[in-house]
């Protein structure tokens, strides 16, 4: 597993996509998109990402998801490369469902556990996983409890992913620092 984070507009997606493509021409590329196009701005962001991928000499199988990993990609071959983009929007989807559907806090833990299990399962199947996320923890706590819960869950999940990754990178304005 490979973990890649960075600030907004840091070049982390481009680095992640290039990394995935460099793994070889015979690989099956899966782009797992967790962004939900709930407004015009998000639609534009998604179109920009789609456009970037179309302009590459590679074929991406795009899989859209919100919280649960779709059944069709739960079992993959060792030739598969999964680019999971990204942990921050995935966790927002989890917390959004939790609030919108008044679920209990077990729901959040179960979602996180099932994502962790799937990442480990892909690893065991021999697939390569590239996980993208954002650096959002270097500021003062929010006055909103929901945001602070999000920060805590995200930080802990990042720690777990880094611990289970073979390589971990932080991207700052296209400059890449390999932490692991």
């Amino acid at each position, binding site marked *: 597993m490979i973990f890649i984070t960075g*600030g907004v507009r840091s070049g982390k997606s481009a680095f992640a996509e290039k990394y995935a493509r460099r793994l070889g021409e015979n690989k099956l590329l899966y782009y797992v998109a967790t962004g939900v196009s709930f407004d015009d701005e998000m639609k534009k962001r998604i179109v920009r990402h789609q456009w970037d991928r179309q302009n590459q000499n590679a074929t991406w199988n795009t899989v859209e998801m919100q919280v649960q990993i779709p059944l069709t990609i739960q079992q993959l071959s060792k030739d598969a490369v999964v680019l999971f983009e990204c942990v921050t929007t995935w966790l927002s989807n989890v917390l959004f469902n939790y609030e919108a559907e008044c679920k209990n806090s077990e729901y959040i833990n179960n979602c996180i556990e099932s994502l962790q299990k799937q990442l480990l399962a892909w690893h065991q199947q021999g697939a390569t996983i590239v996980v993208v996320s954002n*650096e*959002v*923890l*270097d*500021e*003062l*706590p929010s006055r909103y409890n929901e945001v602070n819960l999000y*920060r*805590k869950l*995200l*930080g*802990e999940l*990042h*720690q777990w*992913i*880094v*611990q289970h990754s073979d390589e*971990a990178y*932080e991207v700052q304005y296209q400059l890449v620092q390999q*932490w*692991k």
Partner: protein
Amino acid sequence: MFIILGGAHNGKRAYVEDLIAQLPTKKLVKYEGILPRIEEETEDKRIIISNFEQIVLPHLHQPEELVAQQIFERIAETSALAEVFCICTDTSRGIVPLEKEARQLRDTCGRLYQKLCNEGHTVVRVWYGIPQILKGAHYGQN
């Protein structure tokens, strides 16, 4: 003095605990959101100071430099008597807060962390559990 830097929920505390486990045993005292009382400190003690935001918060009516200097001096005096670990949560890389008090808090903590990093013999940044030594022996290494 050891300074441990990093964003919130990045594993700074766990790193300090791992580090301490490798050092000779000493009596450990934790100060969260308060400054150590100097008269209680002796050389056989190891001290962890954390939650600097809480320490700074009651003093925001005073100038940033003065507050940072006063807190720094207390910690430096403590450090002369005991082994001190400062856990500093980096809050300096977000959007400028709208509230004046939050801006002052962030600025004062930043000023204080500069002084602590200048004084400390070892400064380590922790990124999701991975340490990077920014100052001291083994500079640049994990």
